[in-house]
């Protein structure tokens, strides 16, 4: 649909309809400032650093990664809540990168967000009716009785009692509050809803309700979702495709089935091995990949592949080259992109408890020493 379709995997567009959102080399650096009166920049947090992805109409893209890997920042960049440092965001072919508030307004109707904390995202001093009615008020869509009717319709759609429109958020449970957040996001019939960990603050039993609600709504209103979570099983359940983020970059993008069955990136493999297994026998038999160390500081991310200091498969070239998202094995479908120079083959076991490259202050060296760290 646009000229920028050239940098995508061949055949990708035919697989699942047209592109709704296209993010190209998007980056967000937060400056770190010091000084009392005259503040100067002493560093930058590389929260998102060169993310490119495409979102097709009607699909759900799961976005997973550890805390601090830039998932939420990416979501807020797409929602236009932060200005981006670099890169572009195109929505239905139109560039919406760093638009002025006035020009962004029409797109705000199309891109909505559901927030993680159902307690913090609803104003405690305002009635539910006015919270859900806010989108109508802001965009001058409906007034008075008409707005109230629409609000009550929305409450019904998300499974709330429409009679409760004059209550306060404090009078609802966590799950119900998240439904209020969903109703608010749904009010203007957006095309894209970014769900920023919509269920991680909820009880497991309630999580299912909200996830099912989101799925029902997707069918009913033909919504496209970006679904951020760190619960891998929920992501697998809701997503058509899954993107794995590590330290501000995408490590791997694939259809949910591909990603979970044939992870190519060592980080994805390690991440998947951390999913809790409810069956104790199988849990015993399972081999967990325990990564050593912590996620490096996003203020000064490692050169080359972001994952190389912790990667059990890292080689010298990983410290120099920054891998691009591509299909890495011949039998991988074109939709399976992995940003790794030495991807994991299907039956390869990754049980080293140690990074293959050791870091010291000056640089990286290939290490053959094994009696180090490890536990």
């Amino acid at each position: 649909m646009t000229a920028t379709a050239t940098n995508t995997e061949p055949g990708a567009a035919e697989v699942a309809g047209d592109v709704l959102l296209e993010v190209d080399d998007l980056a967000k650096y937060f400056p770190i400032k010091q000084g009392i009166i005259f503040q100067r920049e002493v560093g930058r947090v590389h929260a998102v650093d060169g993310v490119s992805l495409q979102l097709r109409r009607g699909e759900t893209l799961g976005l997973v990664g550890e805390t601090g890997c830039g998932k939420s920042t990416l979501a807020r960049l797409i929602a236009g809540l932060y200005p981006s440092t670099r890169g572009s965001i195109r929505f239905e072919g139109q560039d919406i990168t760093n638009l002025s508030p006035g020009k962004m307004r029409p797109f705000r109707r199309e891109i909505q967000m559901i927030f993680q904390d159902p307690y913090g995202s609803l104003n405690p001093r305002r009635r539910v009716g006015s919270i859900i009615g806010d989108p109508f008020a802001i965009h001058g869509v409906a007034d008075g009785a008409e707005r109230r009717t629409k609000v009550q319709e929305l409450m019904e759609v998300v499974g709330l009692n429409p009679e409760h429109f004059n209550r306060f958020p404090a009078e609802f449970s966590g799950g119900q509050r998240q439904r209020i957040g969903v109703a608010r996001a749904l009010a203007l019939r957006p095309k894209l809803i970014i769900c920023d960990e919509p269920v991680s603050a909820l009880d497991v039993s309630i999580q299912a309700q909200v996830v099912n609600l989101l799925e029902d709504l997707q069918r009913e209103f033909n919504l496209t979702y970006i679904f951020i979570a760190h619960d891998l099983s929920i992501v697998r359940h809701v997503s058509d495709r899954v993107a794995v983020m590590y330290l501000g970059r995408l490590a791997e993008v694939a259809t949910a089935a591909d990603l979970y069955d044939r992870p190519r990136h060592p980080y994805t493999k390690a991440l998947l091995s951390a999913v809790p297994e409810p069956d104790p026998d199988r849990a015993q038999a399972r081999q967990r990949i325990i990564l050593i160390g912590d996620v490096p500081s996003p203020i000064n991310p490692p050169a080359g592949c972001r994952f190389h200091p912790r990667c059990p498969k890292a080689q010298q070239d990983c410290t120099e080259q920054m891998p691009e998202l591509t299909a890495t094995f011949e039998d991988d479908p074109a939709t399976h992109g992995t940003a790794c120079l030495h991807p994991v083959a299907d039956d390869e076991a990754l049980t080293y408890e140690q990074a293959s490259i050791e870091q010291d202050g000056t640089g990286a060296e290939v290490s053959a020493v094994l009696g180090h760290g490890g536990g």
Partner: protein
Amino acid sequence: MTQSTIPDLLEDSGGHFADTGSGGGDAKRIEGRTPTQLALLRLRKDKAALVSGAVVIILILIAIFAPVITAIIGHGPNTQYRHTGLSLSDIPVGPNSTFLLGADDFGRDLLSRLVYGARVSLFVGLVTTAGSLVIGVIVGLVAGFFGGALDTVLSRITDIFLSFPSLLFAISLVGVFGQSINLVVYIIIAVSWPVFMRITRGQVLSLREKEFVEAARSLGSGNLRIMFIDILPNLVAPLIVYSTLQIPVNIIYESTLSFLGLGVKIPTASWGDTLSAASAFYTVKPTFLLFPILALLITTLSFNILGDGLRDAFDPRAARTMAK
């Protein structure tokens, strides 16, 4: 709201009546109560605050109906009764059947003076508090919300106002512009708005980071809408409390100015002015000094106790520890 039918819902700020999804049958009965309403419910248990509130209301009524009251007494506030109000040696008379609280140094009825003095005190106290509230909230909202250089500039301006030596400031301004009640109001506003600015700014600094602000922004709300519709309602409780506590401070300040002859123009009745006159007679006529002091004391104490009660009412945790 139907507060009277549900008197005992006060324990927590949100009665959890939410029934999952279907409900409906008894939905009408339960109405959403604002945190403010819940606070008022809690306030109704605080006897001292209730009495203080009643006294405040009576004082306001006295101030409003001052002409009626003086008409009933039969002595105007500025009428001098040189023969009945003063003794032969020009000492004001004490309380008697004609002058219920005695007379002042000009032979005027002290009760009438105090009744009219309530007008000045309450007018100044309320107007200055309202004025400094409006200025302080707007400046604090802007500074806290936008932050950065604007915040630094506005905060330093506030610091400058806070560091004014208030009495010297008043003396010099009265010296330039002459005595008037308007000037008193301006001076007190200039001295007291920084209080509200600081409270507001501090609250806004934390509120603007809340997710609901981000949610409002993602919906397309502009800055003004976020400031006044999303953030301001969250400031209501502390602002009510601090306003109530600021009123007596400002009343005292007006009395101080009037006591020093910097306040309202003579012969307007003012408690501070009466106190000043009475200070010359406290050895011979202590009641002359006592009654204006009592008026000032009762007024400021009532506002303070009411303010404290409101603060406890708006903070459920404080109320609970108090009860134990």
